[in-house]
């Protein structure tokens, strides 16, 4: 467990090395001290605790502490054993057998068995449950329990990523007894196998968790409890953190990050991620049916300046490839330099000799969308694009523009696998397809890569898929945004992850002076 922990820390780029690094060294050498309460602030409400359905940023932290899944992703996005200790796949990746951890108990003391796993996955696969995990697990044909500590998955099509898919934040194991009750009970009550259990839950204010003494990892968690406080006002949240009233901030705003990182007694963490904002250009409509217009747009965006202006430098420029550094099968695709002259020439070749006047729609939430829109408008002006930025309410955007309009700003989180990233927006049958790319060759490559259990072969297939994507440019992905979090220096091992789904709070301990 200790080497794993060190690996995890290595990928977390600490800003303000002077303050972050001594903290790291100490965390690795000092012996963890049990006890203490951790107060975490967050700015988005915990509306529910139904692990099968929820999707809020603070809700993910809550269920990561309350529940455990069969596997859990480490920061390299590799599945690590949780409730399953080991797993084997058939050569065609169509049958998987998971061995379960013995002597695990739920918070109410009842034992954890394969029946709970079967009941949970059956519930996820039931469309009535409305679980976001269903989209990555719907290739499961059947799940059976040969004995109390073994589960067997039979898949409709081969899928080598199943151990990653079962690590989905919404696929954590709920007890079979709880699933027999009406589903709505899970909104406020939780009986998991995670390191902490609920003491009080008030969705408008506070979630109080206490240590689960029967947690299966001996000696963990170190903390006696965790309290999550809601601060709807961002300025109030950072003020409370800086004054010491809170021990950790779940998410730090870009604009505030440098100020908070520079404050004394604070460890601020930057976790490189694959979150992105993209410029959607629907390919079945004019003018974007012409690759020259799309390429012109790509060269009309100064990616490094966008990172500096919109992300305050807390991100990385991207090259229109949805696969960010951090995914396992990233292929090196060419840089897309800012070149207004070239863009202007391409526009002229496409028939827009006097430039192109077009409205760009941005939802007002989160604010980063219209910031990207405003910045792109300015950058693309010398290239001959006359962009009219229109910021509209998020509800109107969802109802009238999203997946209907032909030029708007999208915003997406990082996915656990390449397959999930491709099938989110870009394949013909993608869950939120809005590019109208519908490229058969790309679809076939994604399908082939999915069922290929051979690592080298998958890498080659996914490389082709990424090359196709940057060739055709179904949308412009100008940057990847970092995940930002912070803790006071007496808090050791506080962390986040590129997907913002796993937080490893059982490893956190506090050392107050």
């Amino acid at each position: 467990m200790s080497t794993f922990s060190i690996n995890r820390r290595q990928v977390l780029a600490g800003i303000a090395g002077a303050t972050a690094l001594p903290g790291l060294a100490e965390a690795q050498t000092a012996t963890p001290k049990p006890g203490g309460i951790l107060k975490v602030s967050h700015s988005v409400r915990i509306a529910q605790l139904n692990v099968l359905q929820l999707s809020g940023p603070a809700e993910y932290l809550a269920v990561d502490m309350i529940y455990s899944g069969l596997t859990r992703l480490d920061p390299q996005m590799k599945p690590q054993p949780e409730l399953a200790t080991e797993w084997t796949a058939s050569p065609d990746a169509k049958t998987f057998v998971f061995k379960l951890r013995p002597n695990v108990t739920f918070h109410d003391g009842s034992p954890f068995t394969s029946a709970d796993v079967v009941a949970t996955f059956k519930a996820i696969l039931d469309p009535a449950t409305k679980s976001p995990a269903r989209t990555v697990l719907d290739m499961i044909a059947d799940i059976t329990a040969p004995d109390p500590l073994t589960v067997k998955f039979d898949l409709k099509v081969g899928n080598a990523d199943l151990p990653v898919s079962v690590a989905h934040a919404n696929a954590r194991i709920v007890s079979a007894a709880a699933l027999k009750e009406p589903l709505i009970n899970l909104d406020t009550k939780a009986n998991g196998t995670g390191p902490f259990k609920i003491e009080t839950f008030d969705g408008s204010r506070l979630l109080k968790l206490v240590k689960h003494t029967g947690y299966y990892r001996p000696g963990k968690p170190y903390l006696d409890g965790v309290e999550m406080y809601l601060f709807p006002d961002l300025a109030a949240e950072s003020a409370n953190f800086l004054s010491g009233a809170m021990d950790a901030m779940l998410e730090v705003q870009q604009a505030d990050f440098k100020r908070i990182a520079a404050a004394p007694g604070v460890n601020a963490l930057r976790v490189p991620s694959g979150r992105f904002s993209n410029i959607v250009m629907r390919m079945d409509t004019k003018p974007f049916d012409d690759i020259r217009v799309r390429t012109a747009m790509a060269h009309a965006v100064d990616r490094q300046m966008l990172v500096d202006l919109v992300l305050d430098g807390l991100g990385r420029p991207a090259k229109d490839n949805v696969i960010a550094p951090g995914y396992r099968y990233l292929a090196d695709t060419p840089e897309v330099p800012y070149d207004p002259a070239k863009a202007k020439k391409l526009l002229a070749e496409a028939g827009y000799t006097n430039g192109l006047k077009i409205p760009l729609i941005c939802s007002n939430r989160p604010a980063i969308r219209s910031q990207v829109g405003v910045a792109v408008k300015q950058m693309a002006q010398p290239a001959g694009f006359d962009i009219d930025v229109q910021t509209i309410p998020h509800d109107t955007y969802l109802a009238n523009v999203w997946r209907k309009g032909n030029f708007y700003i999208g915003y997406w989180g990082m996915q656990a696998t390449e397959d999930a990233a491709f099938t989110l927006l870009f394949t013909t049958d993608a869950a939120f397809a809005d590019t109208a790319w519908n490229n058969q060759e790309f679809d076939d490559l994604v399908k082939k890569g999915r069922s290929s259990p051979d690592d080298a072969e998958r890498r080659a297939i996914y490389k082709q898929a990424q090359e196709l994507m940057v060739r055709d440019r179904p949308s412009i992905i100008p940057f990847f945004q970092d995940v930002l979090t912070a803790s006071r220096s007496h808090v050791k091992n506080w962390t986040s992850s590129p997907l913002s789904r796993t937080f490893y709070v059982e490893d956190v301990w506090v050392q107050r002076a």
Partner: protein
Amino acid sequence: MRDLLRHPTGLAGAILLAVVLLAALFGSFLAPHDPQLFHPATRLQGPSASFWLGTDQFGRDLFSRILNGARTTVAFGVSATLLGVGFGAMIGITAGVVGGWIDSLIMRLVDGLLAVPDLLFTLLIVTVLGGGAGHALLAVAVAFTPGMARISRSAVLSVRTREFVQAAVARGESRAYIIGAEVLPNALGPLIVEATIRVSFAIMLGATLGFLGLGAQPPSTEWGLMIAEARQYMFRNPWCVAAPGAAIAIAALGFNLFGDALRDLIDPRGRR
């Protein structure tokens, strides 16, 4: 007019108003920089020789943006008030002239609406209609209507029983003529005073809606929106919040003081 400028409040109001109107009319020509142009090398800086009020998060010149936004902001306040006064006056004068049970009915409805605070009422309307500058303007106008209706009705009532109105009635003039030629010109004074003061409230309501993300939208230079966008950069450059805030205060104060002075002058009891 000379009386107004001799009045200390009136003078102060007139000066502030002149500054604001100058910015509203000629702001775009006076601005030293393009209000939308990025200066990435000089982001979030305090006042300097080239950027008089500093720069915002994109490195845009705050002074130019405020000058540019003056027209939007003042136009919003004035047109929302004019609309509100128009609706309100129509309702109030009708009620006052017609009288009887129609008057009672209209006024009870208006009283009911008056019980709802302006800002709350505006928010309610914008939430129903959806955000955007046009809807925000309409919302402020509608929120102003009941108050203006009540004021115009009382102005009409005080005039209605005067001799010159009774003379017109005795002459057998039509009701439309009586309203248009006899009642309205004599009831206009209080309406103008009230409208002038209300412009400042309209500007503040507009800025509030812009701040809450329900009014003007980026990249507009509306002052309330500028504050909202700059709020998260407040600790890095206080000027990007303070400057548009001061601009709103000056505009609102100008209209308010001017309106106050106007009222003092029109009210015969206030006159020395």
